[in-house]
C-alpha cells in the first residue's frame, strides 16, 4: 500500500533526496521543527521533552532521597516532602514513562520499520505533541503556584480537601491523556493500513507488536482516566458528591476508577519496553528471536488481562473479599505471559553470537531487574502476603524494579541502539559501558534495600521513619547518587557524540529490520526510493559483516 498524504515542510521535498541530505538537514530554522509533520522530527522533539521531564522528576527523586539521610528532618519540612514525592511520581508517570517510548522511539522507528513514509495521520501526530506540551506546562505551572501534596494517585477525600492546588495538575494530566490517545490511534491505523503488502502480521518486528498492544490500551483506558479526573475537578470545585463521603459520595469508588486506567497504564509503560528488549536481544545475539509468535501473542495477552486486575491495588481498601479473590486470581494470569517473554529472550541467546555492546548490556540488565520486579509482583498478588506488604516500601521497590528498572533500562537500551540512526553519530562505547555499570549498581543499591525495609514494615510516603531503618535508607540514598552520576555521564557522552562522534554507518549493530536498511540518519521520506522488500524480520543469515566499513549490510532477499 502506498501513502497518499502530502507532507508539508518549510520547503518542498522530492522522494529522491539529494546525496547527503537527511531529515535533520533537509530544512532549517526553528519553524521547520515546530511545524514539522515528519514523524522523525516529532519523535526527536518528544525525546527531548520526555528526557527533560526525566531530569525534572529525577531532581525531585534526589531531593526525596536526600531527605531520608536522617530519620528526622534533614533538608525540608513535612509539607515540602509531601509535595516532592507527589511531583516525583506525577512527573515521572505522566510526563515521562507513559509517553517516552511510544512517543519518542515509536514515532521515530514505527513508520521506518514498516517501510512507510510517515504515520497515517501526520497532523494528528503533531497535535499530540502540542497537547503534551500544553498538559506539561499546566502541570509545571501548578508546581510554581502551590504544588499538590496528594501523591500521584490523587486519592479522595484527601485530594478534594487539601489546600494545595490540585486542579491545575489534574487538568494537565487530563490534557496529556489526549496526547496519549492520539498517538495510540495513529499507531493502530498506521500498522493496519501502511504495512507493505508482503508484510503479514507475523512478519512485523516485535517492537511493533509491543506498540500495537500499547496503543490498544492507550485508546481504551485513557478515556476512563479523563472522566475520573474531570469528576475529581468537579468534586473539588463544585462539591458534586461523587467521591466525598461528607457529600454522600464513596472514596473507594475513586480508587476503582483510578486503577481501572492506572493499572493498564502500567502495561502502557512496560509493553513497548518489552518490544525494545525483543529487538535488542535478537540483534546483539545475531540470532533469530526464539518463538516469535509466543512473544507477539503474550504482548496482546498482557494488554487484555491488564484490564482485569485493577482491584489488586485495593486488597486492603475495604472492597469485598470476593472481589479481592477474583482480582488476585486474574493477577496471577498476567504473570504467565511475562514469564514466557523472559524465557524466550534468554533462549534466543542460545547458539547466538553475542556482541556485548551497551544496548545488549541494558537488555541483560533489563532481564535481571525485570525478573526481580516480576517475581516480587507474585508476593503482592498473593492476598495474605499483600495485606502485610501493601503501602510499604516493598511496593515502592517492586514498581521501581518494573517501571524504572524495566522501562527505563529498555529505554536506555533503545536510546543507545537507535542513537546512531537518529543522529548519524556513534557515541563512545567505553564511556557508555562505564555509565551502564554505574546505573546498574546504583539502581540495585537504591531499590533492593527498599524491599528489605518494606517487608520489615516501613510504610511508604513517610517523612520521618523509625531509627532502625536508618542504615537502609542511607544506603538507598547513596545508590540514587551513584545512579545519578551514571545518568549525568550518559548525557555528557551522548551530547558530545553529536559534535565529535564518528559518522555512523547505515547498520552499525547488524540489525535485521528495515530501519537498518536506510541511511543514518534517514532521508526525509525514510528511504531513497522504494523501501527494500521484507521477509522474516529476524533473518540474520542475510545480515553480513563488512570488514572494510566495520558495519553490516543485507544480502538481497532470496526467492
Amino acid at each position, binding site marked *: 500500500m502506498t501513502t497518499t498524504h502530502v507532507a508539508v515542510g518549510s520547503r518542498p521535498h522530492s522522494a529522491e533526496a539529494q546525496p547527503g541530505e537527511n531529515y535533520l538537514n533537509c530544512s532549517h530554522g526553528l519553524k521547520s521543527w515546530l511545524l514539522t509533520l515528519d514523524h522523525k522530527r516529532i519523535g526527536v522533539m518528544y525525546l527531548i521533552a520526555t528526557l527533560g521531564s526525566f531530569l525534572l522528576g529525577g531532581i525531585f527523586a534526589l531531593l526525596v532521597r536526600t531527605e531520608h539521610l536522617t530519620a528526622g528532618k534533614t533538608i525540608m519540612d513535612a509539607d515540602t516532602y509531601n509535595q516532592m514525592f507527589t511531583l516525583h511520581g506525577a512527573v515521572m508517570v505522566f510526563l515521562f514513562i507513559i509517553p517516552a517510548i511510544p512517543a519518542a522511539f515509536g514515532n521515530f522507528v514505527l513508520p521506518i520499520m514498516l517501510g512507510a513514509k510517515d504515520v497515517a495521520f501526520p497532523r494528528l501526530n503533531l497535535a499530540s505533541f502540542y497537547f503534551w506540551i500544553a498538559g506539561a506546562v499546566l502541570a509545571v505551572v501548578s508546581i510554581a503556584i502551590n504544588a499538590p501534596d496528594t501523591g500521584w494517585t490523587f486519592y479522595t477525600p484527601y485530594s478534594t480537601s487539601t489546600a494545595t492546588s490540585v486542579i491545575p495538575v489534574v487538568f494537565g494530566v487530563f490534557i496529556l491523556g489526549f496526547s496519549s490517545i492520539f498517538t495510540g490511534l495513529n499507531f493502530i491505523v498506521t500498522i493496519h493500513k501502511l504495512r507493505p503488502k508482503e508484510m503479514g502480521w507475523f512478519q512485523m518486528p516485535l517492537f511493533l507488536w509491543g506498540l500495537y498492544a500499547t496503543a490498544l490500551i492507550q485508546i481504551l483506558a485513557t478515556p476512563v482516566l479523563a472522566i475520573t479526573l474531570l469528576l475529581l475537578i468537579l468534586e473539588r470545585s463544585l462539591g458534586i458528591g461523587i467521591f466525598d463521603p461528607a457529600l454522600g459520595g464513596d*472514596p473507594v469508588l475513586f480508587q476503582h476508577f483510578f486503577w481501572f486506567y492506572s493499572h493498564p497504564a502500567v502495561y502502557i509503560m512496560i509493553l513497548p519496553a518489552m518490544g525494545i528488549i525483543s529487538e535488542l536481544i535478537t540483534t546483539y545475539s545475531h540470532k533469530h528471536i526464539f518463538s516469535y509468535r509466543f512473544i507477539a501473542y503474550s504482548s496482546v495477552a498482557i494488554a487484555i488481562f491488564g484490564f482485569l486486575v485493577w482491584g489488586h491495588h485495593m486488597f486492603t481498601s*475495604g472492597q469485598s473479599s470476593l472481589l479481592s479473590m477474583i482480582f*488476585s486470581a486474574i493477577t*496471577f494470569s498476567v504473570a504467565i505471559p511475562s514469564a514466557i517473554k523472559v*524465557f524466550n529472550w534468554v533462549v534466543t541467546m*542460545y*547458539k547466538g553470537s553475542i556482541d556485548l555492546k551497551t544496548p545488549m548490556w541494558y537488555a541483560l540488565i533489563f532481564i535481571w531487574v525485570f525478573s526481580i520486579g516480576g517475581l516480587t509482583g507474585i508476593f503482592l498478588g498473593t492476598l495474605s502476603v499483600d495485606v*502485610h506488604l501493601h503501602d510499604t516500601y516493598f511496593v515502592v521497590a517492586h514498581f521501581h524494579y518494573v517501571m524504572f528498572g524495566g522501562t527505563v533500562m529498555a529505554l536506555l537500551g533503545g536510546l543507545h541502539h537507535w542513537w546512531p540512526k537518529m543522529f548519524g553519530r556513534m557515541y563512545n562505547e567505553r564511556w557508555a559501558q562505564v555509565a551502564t555499570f554505574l546505573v546498574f549498581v546504583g539502581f540495585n543499591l537504591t531499590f533492593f534495600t527498599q524491599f528489605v525495609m518494606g517487608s520489615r514494615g516501613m*510504610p511508604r510516603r513517610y517523612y520521618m521513619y523509625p531509627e532502625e531503618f536508618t542504615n537502609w535508607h542511607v544506603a538507598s540514598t547513596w545508590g540514587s547518587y551513584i545512579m545519578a552520576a551514571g545518568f549525568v555521564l550518559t548525557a555528557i557522552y551522548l551530547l558530545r557524540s553529536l559534535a565529535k562522534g564518528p559518522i555512523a554507518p547505515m547498520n552499525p549493530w547488524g540489525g535485521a529490520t528495515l530501519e537498518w536498511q536506510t541511511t543514518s540518519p534517514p532521508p526525509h521520506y525514510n528511504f531513497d526510493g522504494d523501501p527494500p522488500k521484507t521477509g522474516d524480520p529476524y533473518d540474520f543469515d542475510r545480515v553480513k559483516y563488512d570488514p572494510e566499513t566495520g558495519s553490516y549490510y543485507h544480502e538481497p532477499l532470496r526467492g
Partner: protein
Amino acid sequence: MIGILQAMAPEGLLASAGGSFWLPAAKSTFAKSTDATFYFIYWLSVFFFVLILVMAVWFLLKYRRKGPVPQSQPSAHHSTFLELLWSGVPLLLVLGIFVMGFRGFMDLRTPPKGAYEVRVIGQKWNWAFQYPNGYEDSELHVPAGEPIRLVMTSMDVLHSFYVPEFRVKMDVVPGRYTDAWFQADDPGESRIFCAEYCGTSHSQMLSKVIVHEKGEFDEWMKKAADWISEMAPEEAGAILYDRKGCRQCHSLDGTGGVGPTFKGSFGNRRAWSDGSSGVMDENYIRESILNPKAKVVAGFDPVMPTFQGRVNEKELAALIAYIKSLK
C-alpha cells in the same frame, strides 16, 4: 560463622528485631501462616531468578562473539514443548500460591464469633480506641490469647491501620466501617502505623498495641477507666461537665439557659416549683442528677433527663466538687 557475621554487621542488617532477615517478629496467630507463604514464594523466586541468571550467564560466556564477524549457529526458532513447559509449570505454581494466599486471607477476613470488640477512630493524625465500657484511649490495650475485632472508621480522610508484627492492615475509610481482627498470644508491645497517606503528619500518626496477660488486662482496664481518681475532683468534674453534656443547659457565667446557671449556686436557698424551698447542698445536687424531677427550681420546666445508671459515685462526687468551686 553466622555468629561472627552478626557480631560484625551493623545492628539490624541481618535481621529485624526478633524477626528474620525479611520479616519482623511474628506476634499474631496468623502471622506464622502469612510468613510461611511469604518464604515459599521467596525461595521459589530465588530458584527462578538463579535459573534465569545461570542460563543467561552461561550463554553469554559460551556464545560471546569473538572478533567482529558474527558466528551464530543454526538452531530451532521455536519449540512448542518448551513454551508449554515454561508457561505450564509457572501456571501451576502460581495457582498453588493463589490458594495459599486466599486461605490465609479468609482467616484474616473472618473474625471468630464472640471476639472482644474495640472501636477504632482514625483522625488526622491520631488514633482513638473505644472499649465496650465507653472508655477511650490513644493506645490499643488488649488481652493476650483472645481474638480482638476492630471496627474502624475515619473522621476525615483515608487512613490505614497497620501493625507489621501482626501482619494486619486495613484501610480506615470515612463514611463507612471496615473491620480487622487479630489474636496475640504473648504479652508485649507492637507498633501501629498509619499506612495510607493522610497529609502533613502522616508519618507521625503512630501508636502502640499493648498486649496484657489475660488477668492483667482486666486490672488495667479497671484502673484506666478509673481516671477520675488520678486527678483533683474539681478537675475531673470540669471534664465531666463537658462530657456528660451539662454545659448544654447550665451556664457557668450566670446567664440563664434551659436550666439554672451553676455560677455561685452552691449553698443558696432556692424556691422550688411546688412552692416550698431548700438549700442547694451536696444532697440536692445528687438528687437532681439521679432524679431531676423531684425538686425543680421555680421558673424552670422539668425537662432534665435522669442520669441514673450513667454516672457512678466517683463521678457524682467530682461533679459536686466542681459545682462547689464555681464561686
